[in-house]
């Protein structure tokens, strides 16, 4: 049952869904129709913050072909939210819960129209008259924390939806011991997921009288729970099915069309379809958090950290979504992958009237690491030390106590990951320690080249006391030998290849050839809850669940049961939330570790930064499918490159000004670095299945700070505000007296 000769663990098994995807047969939610289906369109808020006094649907309902317009009055329990149910399904008057008559951003829904055709539904939306009473709005997180700011939610007086502290050691002693102190202010803005498949879905009543939603999401059972809560139905009355999913990256973790589709299908008892276009997708789903970090770090002349002080302020937008968790993760990672005894951190997630922020690959760590690794680079520069050398001096290692006062879970590989990244890129180890080799200067005098490095860590699986779990079911068929295995699992294949990996793990756990495994996936009617395709958790959690189910099924098989069926719910070690005063916690049960080195070329005339090469060292614990794993690394790096250099979502007074791929630019084949080297390390996680850790977010984490370090190496200028657009870079260069005025 281990990865021995003949095992499929580590094999580049071709993904099971490739045939359908290359032939065009694969159906995504927008590709599925049911005879007699109706069409839905949504009336979104036209204000950033206002009370909805009345919603007049008479003209819309009078339009021929309109079947029904639903408003707040039609929603049985008018609230939803993954962590805090702070968002109305439909904003409007008449609810028994305070605040459901208020729109708090432009992505709030006010009404939905259902009609015989999509065109009529669209016309109906235009005929819905919403009467607003404007309320004062706030679009800046720090302003929203002031006493003078408007209060956005009835039960959150200071707009601070989450607030965390870390208080460890003796700060005065830490500053006294410091020979050098560096301070920085780091700022990030929204990032759009830009998965290629815009939101779409189909709602209908199935043969068992369940209201069924076919949609692209990340956690079938969470969607199911959000729906049955709002519709006030028993859980078994709601079914969620995922067909093919066209990318997610965290952007499908929260609800988009799920609840309103279910509402309409349930009330009308007819199939209802909705299809968003790109503009709707960008306007109406959450984004990566804008986060501002103020940091002050001290170190000895030898480069040992003595004290660290950080303030982290995240713009949650109008609703929590997963903001309290994202800022929790930023709180945990803003001290970087380093040991320090004296530490003082304050973190806030703040409601504003902007679009909600939520999950996005990295979950707060990319923003926090921009600050942490920026600080480390500043320290290295101030001490004239090699950036890899100073990291290795301070790096967390096996047994290290984290900022939250507890040891990291066993299997810490950060020093090895840093060293591998250096050795596989441009560092050489000599008598004076690690030394970066400078790049060859370009012949064009307007171009400067530089190399930089950054690293970090991120949790695998849900954190801070969440009752983490994952279910798997296995059925063994045959007589003398196992002829067929049916694996039941709810895990979402959002494109990352999870389904193929699940089947590989089942084949190995059962000792059968891969070809004998079949998968029944992503349907609440056939599976227990396997948790979300997020937090780099699916391989780790599912592998353990599958191993558990396989062991039980094999036992039944040996007891002559035919078919032999078993299921298993895996629970990892428990975690705990931050102590409100000190931050003391056991926040996570597993981590992945990553470091990246980059070479960039800066055009000092234009400020344009070209990413030439990336070396990514990622400790994945154990490779399950090498081809897919490298695909995740390459994809994450390009998404992070977009984040670092190009992607700039512009929002004015809560309204997104560039909701198109023509104005929100993401990397094309011409933008990406031609050379990406994946250094895949396998230091096993002691509780990971086959030793595997999660890996899909990690290559995103340190790219922006590595690029910032390379820009500094090339030009001597620090860029601390993401994205590092040509405009910002050229302004910084000119301010430093570099390039033509």
């Amino acid at each position, binding site marked *: 049952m281990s990865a021995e000769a003949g095992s499929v663990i580590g094999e*580049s098994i*071709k*993904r099971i*869904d*490739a*045939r*359908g*995807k*290359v*032939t*065009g*047969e*694969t*159906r*995504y939610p*927008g*590709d599925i*129709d049911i005879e007699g289906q109706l069409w839905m369109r949504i009336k979104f808020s036209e204000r950033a913050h206002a009370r909805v006094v009345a919603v007049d649907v008479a003209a819309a309902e009078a339009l021929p072909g309109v079947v029904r317009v639903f408003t707040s009055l039609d929603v049985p329990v008018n609230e939803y939210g993954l962590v805090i149910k702070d968002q109305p399904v439909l904003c409007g008057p008449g609810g028994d819960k305070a605040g459901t008559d208020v729109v708090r951003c432009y992505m709030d829904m006010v009404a939905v129209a259902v009609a015989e055709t999509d065109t009529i539904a669209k016309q109906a939306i235009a005929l819905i008259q919403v009467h607003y009473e404007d309320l004062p709005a706030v679009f800046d997180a720090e302003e929203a924390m002031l006493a003078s700011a408007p209060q956005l939610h009835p039960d959150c007086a200071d707009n601070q939806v989450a607030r965390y502290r870390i208080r460890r050691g003796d700060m005065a002693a830490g500053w006294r011991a410091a020979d050098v102190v560096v301070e920085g202010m780091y700022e990030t803005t929204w990032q759009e*997921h*830009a*998965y*290629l*498949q*815009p939101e779409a879905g189909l709602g209908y009543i199935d043969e068992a009288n369940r209201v069924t939603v076919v949609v692209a999401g990340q956690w079938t059972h969470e969607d199911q729970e959000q729906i049955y809560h709002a519709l006030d139905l028993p859980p078994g009355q709601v079914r969620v099915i995922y067909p*093919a*999913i*066209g*990318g997610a*990256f965290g952007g499908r973790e929260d609800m988009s069309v799920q609840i309103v589709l279910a509402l309409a299908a349930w009330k009308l008892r007819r199939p209802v379809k909705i299809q968003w*276009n*790109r*503009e709707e997708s960008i306007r109406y789903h959450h984004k990566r958090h804008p986060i501002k970090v103020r940091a002050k770090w001290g170190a000895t002349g030898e480069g040992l950290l003595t004290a660290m002080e950080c303030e982290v302020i995240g713009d949650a937008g109008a609703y929590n979504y997963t903001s309290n968790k994202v800022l929790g993760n930023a709180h945990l990672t803003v001290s970087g992958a380093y040991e320090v005894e004296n530490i003082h951190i304050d973190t806030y997630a703040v409601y504003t009237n902007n679009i909600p922020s939520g999950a996005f690959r990295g979950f707060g760590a990319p923003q926090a690491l921009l600050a942490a690794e920026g600080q480390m680079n500043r320290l290295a520069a101030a001490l004239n030390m090699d950036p890899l050398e100073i990291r290795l001096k301070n790096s967390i290692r096996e047994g290290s106590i984290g900022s939250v006062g507890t040891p990291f879970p066993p299997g810490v590989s950060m020093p090895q990951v840093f060293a591998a990244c250096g050795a596989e890129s441009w560092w050489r180890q000599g008598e004076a320690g690690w030394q970066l080799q400078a790049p060859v200067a370009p012949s064009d005098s307007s171009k400067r080249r530089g190399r930089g490095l950054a690293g970090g860590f991120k949790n695998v699986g849900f954190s801070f006391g969440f009752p983490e779990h994952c279910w798997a079911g296995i059925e063994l068929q045959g007589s003398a030998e196992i002829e067929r295995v049916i694996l039941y699992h709810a895990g979402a294949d*959002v*494109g*990352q*290849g999870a389904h193929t990996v699940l089947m590989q793990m089942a084949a190995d756990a059962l000792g059968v050839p891969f070809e004998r495994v079949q998968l029944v996936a992503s349907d609440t009617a056939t599976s227990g809850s396997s948790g979300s395709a997020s937090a780099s958790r699916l391989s780790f959690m599912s592998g353990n669940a599958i191993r558990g189910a396989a062991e039980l099924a094999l036992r039944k098989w040996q007891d002559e049961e035919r078919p032999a069926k078993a299921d298993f719910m895996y629970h990892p070690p428990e975690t705990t939330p931050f102590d409100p005063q000190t931050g003391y916690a056991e926040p996570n049960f597993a981590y992945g570790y990553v470091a990246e080195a980059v070479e960039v070329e800066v055009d000092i005339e234009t400020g344009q930064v070209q990413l030439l090469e990336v070396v990514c060292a990622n400790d994945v614990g154990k490779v399950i499918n090498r*081809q*897919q794993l490298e*695909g995740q690394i*390459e*994809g*994450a*790096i*390009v*998404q992070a490159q977009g984040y670092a250099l190009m992607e700039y979502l512009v929002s004015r007074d809560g309204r997104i000004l560039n909701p*198109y*791929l*023509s104005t929100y630019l*993401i*990397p*094309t*084949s*011409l933008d*990406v670095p*031609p050379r*990406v080297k994946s250094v895949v390390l396998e230091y096993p996680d002691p509780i990971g299945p086959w030793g595997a850790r999660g890996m899909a977010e990690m290559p995103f984490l340190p790219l922006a700070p590595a690029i910032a370090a390379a820009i500094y190496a090339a030009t001597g200028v620090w860029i601390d505000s993401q994205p590092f657009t040509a405009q910002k870079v050229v302004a910084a260069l000119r301010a430093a007296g570099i390039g033509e005025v």
Partner: protein
Amino acid sequence: MNVSMTINGEAVSREVEARTLLVHFIREDLDLTGTKIGCDTSQCGACTIHVNGKIAKACTLLAAQADGADITTIEGLAENGEHHPMQTAFWENHGLQCGYCTPGMIMASAAFVRDNPGASEDDIRHYLEGNICRCTGYHNIVKAVKQVADAAAGGA
């Protein structure tokens, strides 16, 4: 109005509204949903098809403009039950993840390599600029296209 065209070797004729986009005609009237819509502004290339042998983004044409045309979509790329070499190459090189950009990528790449056997990696990166992928980082896509381009040059 009436439009007639050949799609994947089959003659079709339908009544459509004059403003119907070709991509909607293909997806909704003909139920050929392999052709995707990703952006509505002709950036992403998920709707790339062949019109009279040349690539076109089906969201940029009216169905009426394709009247009388010979059209191939991803569903018609395989011949005699054999996958097109580009389909096989994307599959084998893991040139896809979520797969939503894949039909458009394959249609664009198949036409490119047909016209440019032996294309260099740099040529391919330039050519594919009009097709966006958010998952793969493009490396395996370029690898897949290069493999077919090399084979095409070798066979020439």
